[in-house]
């Protein structure tokens, strides 16, 4: 099934995508829901990020070329022996086709990272590997926008990765993704930068969920970014467009805009 969230009658609503239509639902795929009778054209809908205020986990250093590139850039980065997760702020989430806004005081070294995102479907703690696979509701696409200077020089990572709009997600959640066949491709102003089979991770979603739930309860609607592949992207400029496409998950497309706030 394909699930999305979209603007509907001055509010947001979850919906099921069937062919070129959205069937709005009352409720949510993470609780109970009921299909409504109306139909909305997918092409005309304003899609939002397909999750609502999740706990937002993220792992990194999870694909070979990206890990090698990161190690080459910083002696603070090393390969992880065990799966782990960090966090991203839910306040930073934005939707497909929304602008990624760079604050006026941000240094000129913002880069992007296309990633596969796991969406969790069960409340769970102390998951086994089999249980972890069952706890996965589906997948969507994410972009882990980062300011290099802030991420490396701030005492702790906060604005470096979590400025408003810096975590685009979407366009929809696919519950039946074949992860062994899915490819992710990242395009920058129309040029492909990198493509990879998403299952070439060091730690699978089940590995990371087992690690997280050793200590922390996950809940339906929580999400987990799985890391990116390839050498670091170029630093973006005002007007640049990035597309992250995953077979079966559509394309997450966003434009970068440099803010001109006076302060």
């Amino acid at each position, binding site marked *: 099934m394909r699930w999305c969230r979209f603007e509907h009658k001055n509010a947001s609503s979850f919906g099921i995508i069937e062919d070129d239509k959205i069937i709005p639902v009352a409720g949510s795929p993470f609780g109970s829901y009921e299909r409504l009778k109306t139909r909305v054209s997918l092409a005309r809908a304003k899609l939002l990020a397909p999750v609502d205020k999740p706990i937002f986990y993220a792992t990194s250093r999870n694909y070979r070329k990206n890990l090698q590139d990161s190690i080459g850039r910083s002696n603070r980065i090393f390969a992880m022996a065990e799966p782990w997760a*960090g*966090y991203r702020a839910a306040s*930073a989430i934005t939707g497909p086709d929304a602008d990624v806004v760079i604050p006026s005081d941000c240094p000129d070294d913002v880069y992007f990272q296309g990633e596969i995102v796991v969406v969790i479907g069960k409340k769970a*703690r102390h998951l086994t590997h089999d249980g972890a696979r069952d706890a996965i509701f589906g997948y969507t696409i994410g972009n882990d926008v980062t300011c290099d200077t802030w991420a490396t020089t*701030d005492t702790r990572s906060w604005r470096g990765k*979590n400025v408003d709009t810096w975590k685009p997600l979407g366009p929809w959640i696919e519950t039946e993704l074949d992860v062994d066949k899915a490819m992710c491709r990242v395009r920058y102003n129309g040029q492909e930068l990198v493509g990879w089979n998403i299952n070439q991770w060091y730690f699978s979603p089940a590995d990371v969920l087992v690690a997280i739930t050793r200590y*922390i309860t996950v809940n339906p609607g929580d999400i987990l970014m799985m890391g990116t592949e390839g050498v670091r992207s170029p630093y973006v400029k005002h007007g640049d467009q990035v597309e992250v496409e995953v077979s079966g998950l559509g394309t997450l497309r966003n434009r970068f805009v440099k803010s001109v706030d006076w302060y």
Partner: protein
Amino acid sequence: MRWCRFETEDGPSFGLIEADTIVQVDGSPFSEFKRMRKKRPLKEAKLLAPVDNPAFYVIGRNYIGHVEGRARAGAPMPPAPWAWWRSASAIASTDSDIIIPADCPDDVEYECEPIAVIGKGGKNFTRREAQDAIFGYTIGNDVTAMSWARSDPGPWRSKNCDTWKPVGPWIETDLDVEAAVCTVLYNGVEQVRWHINNWIYHPVDVLITISRYMTLCPGDILMLGAEGMSPFVQHNDVVEATISGLGTLRNRFVREQPRAQTG
């Protein structure tokens, strides 16, 4: 006014504390609310954390004794107001047990802190807007596992294990911040006492900085830092943080037994 959240037969509810009675409220202090006829004695209520799925900001190292203590262990003083996150999934209530996972090393510390609760959201706050944004104050405890904090790339299990962020017992909207003193008792013995307004960075300064990059929402919380240093806690230890006007946040530490591995 004193706001709390507590268990009812129909699930969690907000309430107003008047003398030793809770007046149940329909709605929340962060949007619309209506007083109901239902009342119950404060003593008989099961209090929950007085906030619901907030964005949970924290400023670390904001009181000089604690800064000096951490500096002796090698941590530098951050140069400007900055902010960090904790996960809402870790929030617990007063009188709940703080559960230390079986595989956690024996170096868990408490950090009792005042918390500013945000009542008005926004972005790019002016000084006056940041002052008006503060709804009230409550108490928190930023329980931390020190070796995990050093070994992990970022704070996940070191700060965000289930139950590791007790908050409460209530929110006071009319706190006399200039007079408020925080006292921390560990197994009944006073460890540290300080005026909460002896902060290095005032909450207004921190909110101005955060709102520069992230939109703040009503109900979000900002932990303001701890004073002094904590010993490593043991099974059955009790920590109590009292702030004049905010009551006492009391929690017991419990070491989890190793689980039998299955699957």
